[in-house]
């Protein structure tokens, strides 16, 4: 049958085309699925330390920020600062958010590093890119649909959609229906 040949060619070639993105979406899917248990985008290190607030007395603005950064050994680029209240100063440097209690010298640092590779996969998966990527992702979704449909008709006979395939496809439908019945 000629249509089956074309079906199989479409299935094969779409499979090759979708491989990369499917792997990315699969890995990111697992990562994001467990967001309640871990941070899929960043490794965050929180450090609490104490500095002597004495030398900071009388300092303001850039001098105060520079002195604190020197005291904690931070040399990354400064993005900005914010006075939460008379006691607390927040300093933002690249990959580190620092909160200082100017009264007792307590310093909280929140250092963040992106999870290399995974961050980029999540970036695409959750469509943070928007713009043209939205349409690429739409095309990918359509391709996945075609892959699924053409996949049903790749084989003939007892392992095809009229035999074993029918049972497995049926189970595939029942799984989401069961969970909808269970949780909805």
């Amino acid at each position, binding site marked *: 049958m000629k249509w089956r040949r074309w079906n199989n060619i479409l299935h094969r070639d779409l499979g090759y085309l979708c491989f990369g993105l499917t792997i990315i979406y699969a890995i990111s899917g697992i990562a994001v699925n467990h967001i309640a248990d871990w941070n899929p*985008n960043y490794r*965050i290190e929180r450090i609490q330390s104490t500095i002597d607030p004495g030398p900071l007395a009388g300092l303001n603005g850039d001098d105060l920020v520079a002195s604190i950064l020197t005291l904690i050994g931070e040399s990354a680029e400064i993005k900005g*600062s914010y*006075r939460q209240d008379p006691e607390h100063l927040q300093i*933002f440097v690249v990959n580190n958010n620092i909160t200082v209690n100017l009264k007792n010298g307590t310093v909280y640092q929140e250092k963040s590093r992106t999870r290399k590779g995974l961050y*980029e996969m999540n*970036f695409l998966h*959750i469509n943070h890119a928007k*713009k043209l990527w939205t349409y690429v992702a739409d095309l990918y979704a359509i391709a996945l649909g075609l892959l699924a449909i053409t996949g049903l008709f790749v084989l003939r006979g007892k392992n095809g959609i009229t035999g074993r395939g029918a049972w497995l496809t049926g189970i595939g439908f029942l799984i989401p229906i069961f969970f909808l019945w269970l949780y909805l």
Partner: protein
Amino acid sequence: MTKTVFVLLISSLLFCVPAFGKTYGKGVHVTETTPVSAILANPDSYLGKTVKIEGLIIEVCSKRGCWIYVAGDQPQEKIQVKVTDGEIVFPMSATGRVGTIEGIVDEVTMSKDEMVRYQRHLAEEKGKPFDPASVEEGKRFIRLIGLGAEINE
């Protein structure tokens, strides 16, 4: 040779540093900026309205990027911008950057117990100590439901 080039190409696609977009969600379309101080001083007249605010981003939800705090135009003033999980994800790198945010003014009223739970959750997430005694009473929160943002990253 072809194989090496192919592997290098795939690797570079996966691990290159992407040019991250600076526009989030639906972007910002409201032309007039509303000072945060005006919203906080008279929230009832802004509730349900779509506004644009501007300010330094002083905190980002490190877990899901689903909220930020924006410093107001008056000292020690800030407002939370909450976005739908996954719809907009603010990166950690947004802290310390100036952002323009469009959103709907919203209110959340919390009892004292709810406030304690909320503050404890925030403290745990940030790895900071929390003293329940620091919460004296419930509170009415004025926040924005974020629709879009532009961040000067």
